[in-house]
């Protein structure tokens, strides 16, 4: 146990040194030392995105060093609250977040919102896929919407946490089918894994998840993919989009990067350029490929408009689900 203790102390000292850091000598030429917060635990989507950015930013030299911190809790609202206070006016602090945080802010009635932070860029957008068990009588999206129309409560959906992107998609499809989205019978599971088991065990009508999570089963023929929720088809995947099939629904599990409140226009521009350079690098393209993420880059201005429309849309659908006032 002594050995372990000693190592931990060394680690702690190391981390302390990193934290203390040398204040960035404000010369335009030297790349900055950045901090990226993932408002979630290590290993999740936002954390992985933050760490991938860290990896690419230091590899291509736009940042001298990047430190990733994790502040988990309450769908990201704990991290957001901390970020709003800590990163105010700071030109070197960033935060990764996504659509789940938009939903969590609304349903947790968080006192801080994404309106307070400065959007820098939209990063990735993973399409969701709607699947049914391979031997289900439902063969197409039209069959599914017909089933919903006939018996909305009897159409059982399986997916991730309540109020998350999966739930939002299920509710939007129900609404598009002409039924009351508030009556969507959505069974929330803690991860893609359990939802997948429910699908394979044929206990639910349809399932929603990120394409990557169901990919293995779709390729093996155990699940039938009805449609993806992205604006365009996935490269190399022969699954139509909901829009193609006449269901006007589009939900993408997007992630974006933000800076703190009250930063100067000049700092915002610098960070935007830095992030843009990172996202346009071949190294980032490699990361996207390795992780199976879809590029969904949008610069600050476009991202800000997009964010506003997402907030309205998510608020509306959560309200119909009884999760927002």
């Amino acid at each position, binding site marked *: *146990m002594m050995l*372990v203790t000693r*190592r*931990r102390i060394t680690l702690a000292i190391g981390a302390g040194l990193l934290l203390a850091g040398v204040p960035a000598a404000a010369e335009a030429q030297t790349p900055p030392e950045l901090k990226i917060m993932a408002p979630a*635990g*290590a*290993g999740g989507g936002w*954390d*992985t995105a933050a*760490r991938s950015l*860290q*990896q690419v930013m230091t590899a291509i030299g736009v940042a001298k060093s990047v430190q990733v911190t994790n*502040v*988990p*809790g*309450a*769908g990201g*609202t*704990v991290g957001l*609250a901390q970020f709003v206070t800590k990163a105010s006016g700071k030109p070197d602090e960033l935060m990764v977040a996504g659509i789940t945080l938009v939903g969590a802010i609304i*349903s*947790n009635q*968080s006192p801080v919102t994404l309106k307070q932070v400065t959007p820098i860029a939209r990063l990735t957008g993973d399409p969701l896929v709607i699947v049914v068990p391979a031997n289900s009588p439902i063969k197409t999206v039209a069959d599914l919407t017909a089933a919903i129309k006939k018996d909305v*409560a*009897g159409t*059982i959906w399986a997916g991730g*946490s*309540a*109020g998350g992107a999966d*739930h939002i998609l299920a509710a939007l499809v129900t609404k598009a089918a002409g039924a009351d989205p508030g009556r969507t*019978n959505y*069974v*929330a599971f*803690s*991860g*893609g*894994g*359990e939802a*997948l*088991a*429910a699908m*394979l*065990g044929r*206990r*639910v009508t349809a399932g929603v998840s990120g394409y*990557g*999570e169901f*990919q*293995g*089963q779709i*390729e*093996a023929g*155990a699940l039938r993919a009805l449609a993806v929720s992205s604006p365009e088809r996935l490269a190399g995947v022969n699954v139509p989009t909901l829009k193609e099939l006449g269901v006007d629904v589009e939900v993408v599990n997007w992630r974006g990067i933000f800076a703190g409140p009250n930063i100067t226009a000049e700092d915002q521009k610098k960070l935007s350029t830095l992030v843009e350079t990172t996202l346009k690098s071949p190294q980032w393209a490699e990361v996207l490929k*390795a*992780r*199976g993420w879809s590029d969904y880059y949008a610069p600050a201005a476009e991202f800000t408009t997009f964010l506003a429309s997402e907030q309205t849309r998510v608020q509306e659908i959560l309200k119909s689900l009884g*999760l927002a006032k």
Partner: protein
Amino acid sequence: MDSLLALGHGFVVAFEPTNLLFAAIGVVLGTAVGVLPGIGPALTVALLLPVTFKLDPGGSLIMFAGIYYGGMYGGSTTAILLNTPGESASVVTALEGNQMARSGRGGPALATAAIGSFVAGTIATFGLAFLAPVLVRLAVNFGPWDYFALMVLAFVTVSATFGSSPLRGLTSLALGLTLGIVGIDQLTGRARLTFGVPQLFDGIEVTTLAVGLFAIGEALYVASRHLYAPEKPIPVKGSLWMTREDWRRSWKPWLRGVGFGFPIGALPAGGAEIPTFLSYTTERRLAKNPEEFGRGAIEGVAGPEAANNASAAGTLVPLLTLGLPTSATAAIMLAGFQQYGLQPGPLLFTKEPALVWGLIASLFIANTMLIILNLPLIGIWVRLLAIPLPWLYAGILVFAAMGTIASDPSVVELAMLVGFGIIGFLMRRYDHPIAPAVVGLILGPMADNQLRRSLQMSLGDPMILLQNPGSATLLAIAALALVAPVLLKGLERFQAQED
């Protein structure tokens, strides 16, 4: 035969020097983080993922598996010696293990845990290699109603941890169940009992409660009595090693532990905790001297320890065959697979046989390395008990706080740890058992969610619990376990009257 041949090839892969090195690094790291409360294998693997990005996929996955198995070993060490379970799966181990350590039998307790883990790990890894395809088909057919019935069975068995008074046991259980409600409800997304504190939205961490109640509560209690009635734990009494009697009493619980751990671990929502509860109860029921339970019965360490290691191997069944991560560590390992462009699932065994079988073979190797690493350590570990009590408990407090901060660096979490510590002290002072509170926190939310999922799927019809053969059988066993002792007692009285 095909599997045997494939396993042979797997050993060829696993015996490559670099892979052996990775396995060794993994088990050492795993044992170390298992010993530290709060830092589990999941966090360690998550932190190592970006570091291993450039490494060979086989090697790093082998290392991750080593960490996973190692963590299961390490967790029991602190549970036995310091009454501080490193993770929820070793809560049960602390019950008997710590009693053994206090009466000078820490050596045999650690030995039966280590050997039991080895035996269980090895058998379960064989199960993974040969039974995976069969087991996984059963596992996906396990519906929410079956899980709920399994939870009911587990609840019935909780009474075994109640100690002397059922009322006090139920009080402690109710505390755990109430704490289990705190947080955002998974099924509706609404906050329950959070009082607007965002840090409570994710619910109460099992390790925070367990470490608070067990370790901090214990430290406060010992401190409160130190002046006028100092406790003198006996560092070592008798052999450091297991006696012939210990072996005789351990081997059956080991095997039964595998029987609980492996299949339940393979269930997508089975987990490592329930098999340890079931194993503990079974051993208590089957023991020749049930009155020894609560005072350091070796069966109560051997069974649960075997069960939690077997469940670790069980977890890999759905992960490798379906791509279903069923524990936090498995979820992060899945991310590891995906990092290398590998998609675990039905096609992984055919697409990447060298990798899968190499991984399975290295599990055998990791298991062997762990026992070689851990048995000699026992002699060093038990010396911890010779440290003067004030020093030892001060150390425990530091460890407990550090572990909590490492897993979630927030003031609220630390305040909760201290709060639970004070509750733990009061529960000891007024003689309430601690384990049921932790069990309630683990089982409560699971039972709650699974029951409501069942009802959501049956459109509100409770009969679904009895219509499915699986859940009906489990509920019947639970009912029997509940009623049988009462009936038997009644029968005895009846016979006594006859005489």
